[in-house]
Structure formats: structure tokens, C-alpha cells
């Protein structure tokens, strides 16, 4: 992928492996993408495709052992985040790149008041004193739509519902006006109605604060509604990358096609829902060549060899030998 000058984040050939029981799990196996300033990038894929590990790797939040970032670059503000010292990346975490996680029920500290958890981030990065930080925390809670914020700030996380907790997480993540927000399946654990609210909230705040967003999800509907570009991950690699509209109207990789086909269309009556045959491969024992080939109906002998990612048209890339 061509390096763009307006990219806020460039990931190049990122590799994160997990070690255990004598096996190496290549959870992220050469991922590259660019995120343009102000844009939202969607990363979709099945569970275990390496979406979350990719994004945890960006901030070097992979627990070691067993995980280790073994190669690649993540360029942010002209610096390779993989190479800067620990105290420097700590100044980026939470301040310039913030994260929201999948499960709001477990992502907040149950032993600390919500307020303390919100305040510590602005105290750390913006040097606010106690009363300033408290004021800021109340402000942020109001911003994400928590009613009666000045009272609820002294509550603990178990006193909030799942959707409310995710709002608190968002408030926390956006406290320092980060340049990049990584949302790792922010709505997976929530009811559909709450999902829509949370997504609207992220969308609205993104415009208000001017944050670029990486949105990790396995929900194609969310990708369609929220993102400018989309990368499709399979077995630790991005197998297709395109502007979201292009990806939906003109998918190239058979895996992407399969994913899109498996979304039921309410207008067409289907007797049986489509599913991609087979299971995602074992990441510690990948098939030779294209990892998708055992499940692919278009596979040929050529697929015994690994297909490099190549340009299909202007902004559309795909890792498949297929001509079309």
C-alpha cells in the first residue's frame, strides 16, 4: 500500500506472535494499513483473525509472555511506536491514542469509583489538580450522556448498566482529546438498541473532537454505517482493503465475498442462511499458501503459493490470485 502523506498512522508488516506449549501462534502475521487523518477505518474479521491483537500491538499492550511483537513498524507522528522507549509510549497511551474495549462489564476497575478512574487520566496527561480533574470528569460524563453526572461520579462501576459503562469508557478515552481512538468491538457486548446509541455517540464525538478512529468489529452493518475504509482480516493478515463503499459493492477476495453473502438480506426470503464452509485455520499450524484456500470455492493449484497483496484499482487491495 502506498504511503500517504496525510496518514496519521501507518502500520507496516506488523507481526505479533504468541508462544506456548512449544507452538507459535502467529496471531498477527504481516499486517499493513494506513489510517488517514480524520477518517474511520473499519477492521472486520472472524473471532481469532487477529483484529484485537493488531490494535493492542499498536500501543504495545500485548502481555509478554506469552505474546511478543516480533516485527514491523507502526508509524505515528513520524515515530515508530515499536521502537520508542516505554516511558515515551506511555505518554502516547490514553493521551494521543486511546482505546475502548469490547466488554464494558470488565473493563472498568470494580474497586475504584468511576470518578477516580476518569480523573487519573487527565491528572496524568494534562497535569490537572484534583478539583480541575473532577470538573473535567463530570463534564466528560455529561458529554457522553450520563444523567446526573455530578452525583454518579462517586458511584462504582457495578452501579452502572452495560451501556452506561461503555459510555464511561468512552468518556475516559476521550478525556484528553486523543488524535486516534481505537474502538475494539465497542458494542459487541451490548443490546442492539444500546449498540446504536453507542455508535452514534462515537460518531458524534469523533466529529466534535476531530479524532481519527479505528473500529474493530465483526459486524458488517457497523462497518457500512461508520467507516470510510475497511480492512478485512483473516488468519492474522489483512486480505482485502478498500474504501468501504467499494468493498461492499465490488468485493474482490472470496473471503470478503463470503462474509458479505452471509449477511441475510431481509428483502429476499432465504430458506437457509449462507455460511462459509469450514472453520478458521489453526494459527499455530497454518495451511500452506493462502490460508483461506481450504475453505475457498475458487481455489486453484496456484493457491498453494501465498498470494501477495496487490492493487486491484486506485484504492482497492486484495491478497488473492483471482483475476476478478
Amino acid at each position, binding site marked *: 500500500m502506498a504511503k500517504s502523506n496525510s496518514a496519521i498512522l501507518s502500520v507496516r508488516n506488523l507481526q505479533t506472535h504468541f508462544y506456548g506449549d512449544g507452538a507459535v501462534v502467529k496471531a498477527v502475521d504481516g499486517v499493513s494499513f494506513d489510517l488517514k487523518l480524520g477518517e474511520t477505518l473499519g477492521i472486520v474479521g472472524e473471532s481469532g483473525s487477529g483484529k484485537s491483537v493488531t490494535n493492542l500491538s499498536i500501543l504495545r499492550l500485548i502481555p509478554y509472555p506469552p505474546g511478543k511483537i516480533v516485527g514491523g513498524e507502526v508509524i505515528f507522528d513520524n515515530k515508530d511506536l515499536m521502537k520508542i522507549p516505554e516511558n515515551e509510549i*506511555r505518554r502516547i497511551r490514553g493521551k494521543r491514542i486511546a482505546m475502548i*474495549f469490547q466488554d464494558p462489564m470488565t473493563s472498568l476497575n*470494580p474497586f475504584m469509583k468511576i470518578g477516580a478512574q476518569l480523573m*487519573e487520566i487527565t491528572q496524568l496527561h494534562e497535569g490537572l489538580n484534583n478539583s480541575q480533574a473532577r470538573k473535567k470528569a463530570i463534564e466528560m460524563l455529561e458529554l457522553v450522556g450520563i444523567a446526573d453526572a455530578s452525583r454518579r461520579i462517586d458511584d462504582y462501576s457495578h452501579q452502572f448498566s452495560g451501556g452506561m459503562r461503555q459510555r464511561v469508557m468512552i468518556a475516559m478515552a476521550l478525556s484528553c482529546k486523543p488524535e486516534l481512538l481505537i474502538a475494539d468491538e465497542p458494542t459487541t457486548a451490548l443490546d442492539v438498541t444500546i449498540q446504536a446509541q453507542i455508535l452514534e455517540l462515537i460518531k458524534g464525538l469523533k466529529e466534535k473532537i476531530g479524532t481519527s478512529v479505528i473500529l474493530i468489529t465483526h459486524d458488517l452493518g457497523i462497518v457500512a454505517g461508520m467507516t470510510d475504509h475497511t480492512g478485512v482480516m483473516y488468519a492474522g493478515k489483512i486480505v482485502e482493503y478498500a474504501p468501504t463503499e467499494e468493498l461492499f459493492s465490488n468485493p474482490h477476495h472470496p473471503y470478503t465475498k463470503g462474509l458479505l453473502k452471509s449477511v441475510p438480506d431481509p428483502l429476499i426470503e432465504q430458506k437457509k442462511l449462507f455460511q462459509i464452509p469450514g472453520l478458521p485455520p489453526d494459527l499455530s499450524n497454518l495451511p500452506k499458501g493462502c490460508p483461506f484456500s481450504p475453505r475457498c470455492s475458487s481455489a486453484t493449484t496456484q493457491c498453494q503459493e501465498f498470494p501477495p497483496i496487490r492493487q486491484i484499482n486506485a484504492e482497492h487491495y486484495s491478497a488473492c490470485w483471482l483475476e476478478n
Partner: protein
Amino acid sequence: MLKLILRRLLGMIPILFIIITLTFFLLRFAPGNPFANEKAFPPKVIQELNKQYGLDKPLYIQYINYISELTKGNLGPSTRYAGKTVSEIIGEHLPTSLLLGLIAYGFALIVGVSIGIISSLRQNSAVDYFSMAVAMLGISVPSFVLGPLLVIVFSLTLFWLPPARWGEPKHLILPALTLSGVYIAYIARLTRSGMLEVLRADYIRTARAKGLAESVVVLRHALRGGIIPVVSFTGPALTFLLAGTIVVEKIFAVPGLGRIFIEAANSRDYFLVMGLTLFVSTVLVVMNLLVDIIIGLLDPRISYK
């Protein structure tokens, strides 16, 4: 909270009643009596002594008498330490045991928790394996081995501390060290496993993603949850340190409660054994109540209704 404390204190009464009853009858069914061990008294003297202590009456009368004296706060006289009441004896030796126990446990807490945290942060590293091996050793080595070893090193080789004295602050050091050995080991292991569980939690990842320094992540975010097993352990541990330290008391000539307890049991000092059992049971129940209160303060999700 006040309601909880009140209710739990009321709940103590039946528990203590059962303990008193069991101890009372078990003690009486044990062979021997308070005056059998002494030089052969003439039967007349024995009879007189039994009468003096109320031991000549039928057992159930004695039981009722004991309970009714107890409700007045009277633990009865000691037969072994003639002329002293059980309350006086406990009052005399408790400060010693309390001081030694608190120092030993405080020391064990500081060292054990530190070792546990370091081990959990460096899980499966050489540091972890080494400290857990030492902890295993600490649990396995009994105090009658550790105590004399410390005496050999610090008293008989380095001449830093006296081997068996009591009275000055520095005399506390060796017995406290001996007592703390096992507790350091237990606390280190409990802290390690508690911390390992918490460090894997999602909210720790959140804390790291905020850019907090590792020390803040560990001490502010992880320790509160990770330390809970140690808090639970503290209740029974402190109780044991108060009255179960006979070995260390013997080695270092400490005038503590543990020795009194054993001697009372050996000489069938009915009142003293009863009094000490009751005292230790009460301490244990109160300790467990305190532990529950502290855990409730540490973990806001726990509420007692």
C-alpha cells in the same frame, strides 16, 4: 454497617455457647483431674480442694454454675496458679503475646506482600521460581528448626542478639523472625496468586491503555483486588499467633499465652483451659468479623444486608 456488626456480635453468642459446652464436657471426660498430677495429697486435702473449687458437686451443677459465673464476667479461679483468677492470668500474658504476634505478622505482611507482588509481575521468571521455592521451604520448615537456626546464626555466631531473654525491645527480634517465617511464605503465595488473577483482568489492560506507569497500575489498580486473599487469611493467622506459639515461646523464653495454654491443659486446670478457649474463640470470631468488614471496604461490590 452498624447493624451488621451488631447482628454478627449477637450471632457470636450461640457459637461461643456451643464451644463452651463442648470444651467443658470434653475436658471433664478427659482422664485425670486438677490435683492428680501433684504430689500425692492425702484424700482429705483433695476433698477439701475439690470443695473449695466447687468440683465436688454433680457435673451438671458445675456446668450451670460456670455458665452463670460467666454471664457475670467471671472466668473462675486457676487451680494451677493458686490465688490467681483466669482473667488475671490472661491479662498478665496477653500484652506479650499481642506485641510479639503483631510485630511478627506486620513484618510477615510487609515482606510477604512484597515478594508476592514481585513474583506475580515476573511470573515464571527465575525470581518467581526462587521466591516460591523459598516460600515452600518457609512453609515446610517448622519453627523448632527455624528458631534454633536463627539462634545459632545471630546469637552464637554473630553475637548480635541474646538467645533467650525477655524485657527489651531487641529481645523481640529473634522470636518475631521465627514466627513470621511461615507467614511470610503463606502471604507471599496468597499475594502472588491473588495478583496473578487480577493482573489478567480487563481493567488492568484499561489502566495500562491509559498510559499509567506500571507502579501505578500495580499499586493503585491491581493490589486492592489482589490482596483480598491475604486479608481473609489474616483473621485466623493473628488468632493463632496470639495463643498458638508455644514452641517459639519455649525456645526464646517468652512469657506468652501459648505456654500458659499448654500448661493449663496438661495440669487439667479446668477453669484456665475454659477461659483461654473462650478467649481465643472470641478473638477468632471478632477477627473474622473485622476481616469481613475490611473486605467490604476493599470491594465495593460486596454489601452486607
